[in-house]
């Protein structure tokens, strides 16, 4: 299912922060994880992912480092910063509240949103 851009704009950064909660990841790894863990709902193209990563880095929510990949090529890894952790906690809480409210309206099943941020736990 194609998600509207506006909805995606709010959810995708939270999803990326959530995935980085359990350790650093590189770009393609994030794309793959997002697609797999959301059953393709958050299947971000690179055109969305990389600008978003750079934005999150500019805001100080994530940090990158370059390391050698198995192939011997340099690869950039991203990890969550302290500021990013706080933002993630805050956004998760807000999403949960929103989801609960939507659930009461019969738009979303209560507790559905809460499962999204936990996605990183199963990676």
């Amino acid at each position: 299912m194609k998600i509207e851009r506006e909805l995606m704009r709010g959810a995708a950064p939270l999803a990326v922060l959530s995935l980085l909660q359990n350790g650093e990841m590189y770009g393609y790894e994030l794309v793959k994880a997002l697609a797999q863990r959301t059953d393709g709902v958050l299947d971000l193209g690179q055109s969305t992912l990389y600008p978003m990563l750079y934005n999150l880095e500019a805001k100080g929510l994530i940090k990158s480092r370059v390391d050698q990949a198995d192939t011997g090529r340099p690869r950039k890894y991203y990890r969550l910063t302290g500021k990013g952790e706080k933002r993630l906690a805050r956004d998760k809480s807000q999403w949960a509240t929103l989801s609960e409210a939507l659930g009461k309206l019969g738009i979303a099943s209560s507790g559905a949103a809460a499962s999204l941020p936990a996605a990183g736990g199963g990676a």
Partner: protein
Amino acid sequence: MSETREPTFLHRAWHTPMRDLVRGRMSERLDWRGTITKAALPEAVKPLLHKLVRRTRLWRLEKADVAREMVAHFEDALAAGRGIDEAIERFGDWHQTAKLIRRATKRKRSYVWHAWRWSFWSVVVLLGLYTLMGVYYATGSRNIAVDYAAVINEEAAAVPEDQRAWPVFRAAMLSIRDDPAYTEEFEAEGSDYAYTSVGELIGLIKPGDPHWDRVDRFLSSHQSGLAELRRAAGMPGLGYVAGYYHRPEDLPLFEPDMSLADYERQVVAPLKAEFVDDPPMIWMVQLPHVTPIRLAAFMLDTDTLRALEAGDAETVYANLVALLGLADHADEQNTIINQLVTLSIRQLAFETLSEVLVRQPDALSSAQLTDLAHRIAAVRIYTPDFAGERAFMLDLIQHTFTDDGAGNGHLDTRLWHRYAAELSAAGEPVFVGAGDDPVFGTSLIGTAISPAAAMIVADRKDILAKVDHFYALYQADLAEPMWRQPESRADAEVEALIGGSLLQKTRYFPIAVAMPALGAVRKAVERYTAYADGALTAIALELYRREQGGYPDTLGALVPRYLPEVPIDRITGGPVNYRVTDGGPVLYSFGADHDDDNGTIAYDEDDVRLYAVREWVVAEGEAPVDGDWVVWPLHKERAVDNADEE
């Protein structure tokens, strides 16, 4: 791989950051093209990556980072088993991505860079606005609607041609002055004076001086010319219309050493050429006629003493009447220069009368004295008219401000340069602190800052209102006697503006630059009134003496038969003070110290009369001069007194 050649040293150095170069490492980290080209990716994707990275228009180091990350991404996708077509397909909008990457990467840049960027764009925007402002202030047009030269010449021009005294006066002056004996130099040995010609002695010399005979002979030989001067003085109007250059018929009087052809070439032609570009301004109007009028007054003054010695009472009387007539001719133009000349000639008439009455009290008949008293009383109150001065300011404004048709406008920066330069050349400090280098000069700096200054400078209506306010204040000042209101309220306001903040001065700078401080005119008027009162009282005292056989004990005895009222001491506001000495009656003000010094004039150690006794306001921290201000007798007894009033 299309790139198989080994890169050159220069290529490698060019693509290595300075930091690495300093450390001796040829890292080639900046070579983003090389990164893509050498990547183990299908050739189909490389042009897209080139395009993407190039379109980010980031710094080379940033492009290199993006290139490495994109290459890694595609390598990872391929390694994960995706086909290159699918990977390209899934990449999304390349163009949009480049834009987003650029935006996001720039956000990551340092605070210093962001601050610089903001500053840069702020400056660009401000410069743009400033340029627009400059264009605005360079637009609009002036409307030089009023010929203010004609305004100040109104009275002169109204005198019918055939009734003008000027041609008579000019011919008379030329007949006297063109006598070689007038300028012929002679030894001044034995004289108190350093003067060396009759022309220079006239107005200063008195009977008894070693050179008096020479002056006496000269004046005696020019009685017809002097009679013509008196005739001119008695005509109803002078009719000298002041212009920007002399009329040919006036040239012999004003520029005796210059031929008409030279004058036309050297003076008139350049001025006319200048007026083609821009109408002339009123400050270029010349008032050369007041100088020969003053000179004529000195001739009549000295001739009066000659006639007195010769027992020619009719000429004495006629000269005194003529002096008052000349004074009236001098202020046909209502500029302050004209009016001050008028006052000074009237004062000279009182001094001459003083000399006559002290030397030979019985020389003039009672009828002549009574007639003179009536003539003096008719002009006892002299109220200067500031309309001419106001015209100067209004003309400056109409030449330097645009006119929107509704009376408003803004400073015309294109033209202000020129007038500022002219003002500066004329010795006016165009901007406080600017010295000889006017801020609004014709320099590039002047051009660059003029829009800013024009923005600060008040608009036309505001300036006009301020000008009118000041002139109304000056006129109101004149209505208040100085013993009651010593300080000029108008001067105080003008000085507050000129001495105010730079912003205020800039806002009203046409006024700060060109508005004269006219407070001193009050003093000239007060002095004149005191001397006129002195002369009228002295005539009354002489008529009283003739009828009663002696001077009265008090001035009150003169009222009302000889004098309508006792004049006031113009410094204290009390009645003028009166004493009778061996030399006759003395009338005086107590002076600034407000105490009676028995009519004693104060002189300084150099024997110069201390006119501070006539000051109404004693400067803080200074003691008032110990002496009185004698308003009668008025003539000078000492040589040094002749430096007075100049």
